[in-house]
């Protein structure tokens, strides 16, 4: 099983999905971002974005925070240390697959 193409060593299946990879990449270089920014930059629909954000949150890779900007409630997402580590590891693993 370990030699199966379905199980490239080190590739995190949560991040490997292109939409989630985009979200994690976007969040990796900022402190936090709101739903609208992620929606615009990822090009996903609202429903799709919500599903992928939930999946990342379940994995402990991102954290949602409800804040107020003025009087408007605001939802921000940020990458957790676990998410950052998983993203760094994913990039390394991706490189090593091609190097081998």
């Amino acid at each position: 099983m370990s030699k199966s193409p379905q199980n490239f060593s080190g590739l995190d299946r949560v991040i490997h999905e292109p939409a989630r990879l985009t979200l994690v990449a976007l969040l990796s270089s900022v402190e936090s971002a709101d739903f609208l920014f992620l929606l615009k930059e990822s090009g996903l629909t609202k429903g799709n974005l919500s599903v992928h954000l939930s999946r990342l949150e379940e994995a402990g890779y991102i954290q949602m925070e409800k804040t107020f900007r003025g009087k408007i409630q605001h939802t921000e997402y940020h990458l957790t240390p676990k998410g950052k580590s998983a993203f760094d590891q994913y990039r390394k693993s991706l490189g090593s697959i091609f190097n081998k």
Partner: protein
Amino acid sequence: MNVQIDTTVKRARAYWFVDGFTEIATGGLFVILAGALFITRNTSQTPFLSWFLSVTGEIIIVKIVSILAVILGLWWLKDHFTYPRTGFVRNRITGIQIFVILRNMILFLLLPIVSLFTASLFITSTGSVLASMPVWFPVGLGLIWAAFVVLAGEWMGLIRFRLLGGITLLTGIGVGIWQAAMGLPNVPAAVQPTILQPPLLESIDRTLIGLDLILVIFGVILMFSGVATFLRYRKENPQPYTDDV
């Protein structure tokens, strides 16, 4: 795939420049600083030391006030225009860090002049180096700024910064050539003793004129770039985002 990941990462990094406001504000800051430097030039016969101390004090006040105004202005503009259209991003760089970066950049501009002047008080030969500074300072400054702008552009994936860097370099070279064409020495007098060395104060004044010109030209170019970016951004995002869009 990795290339696409990098592009995505860079897109998030460049979000601070997406609406053009940052370039307009920074360009405006450069123009204000150039104006302050120009106004405070030692055109009268004021003793150099008292003029220098007075200018330093005034420039620091102008810097602090204008940088604070720029930060507050940017914060307001982004809060009312950009964030409702394309969302809010909290950068890792805080307002205080931006203040420190801008302050250091400005110090970086003035430091070579102050250092050379101070050194010239102790080392006789520095005077001759200083004499050729009006020619070489703009070229060096243009080169350093161009490298900084291009590298920042590469880090954020902003192609227009390559053009900005190129124009900055050409501006620096242009100002240096202009100073040389006015008869100022382009090599230290010690290297070429036949060159008539202009008085120290004139060298400093001409160096400040060169700095002034670069600040103005770079500031105006940044503002143009910012306006073009803003117009494109507004065309792409005419209305604040609503669920109906």
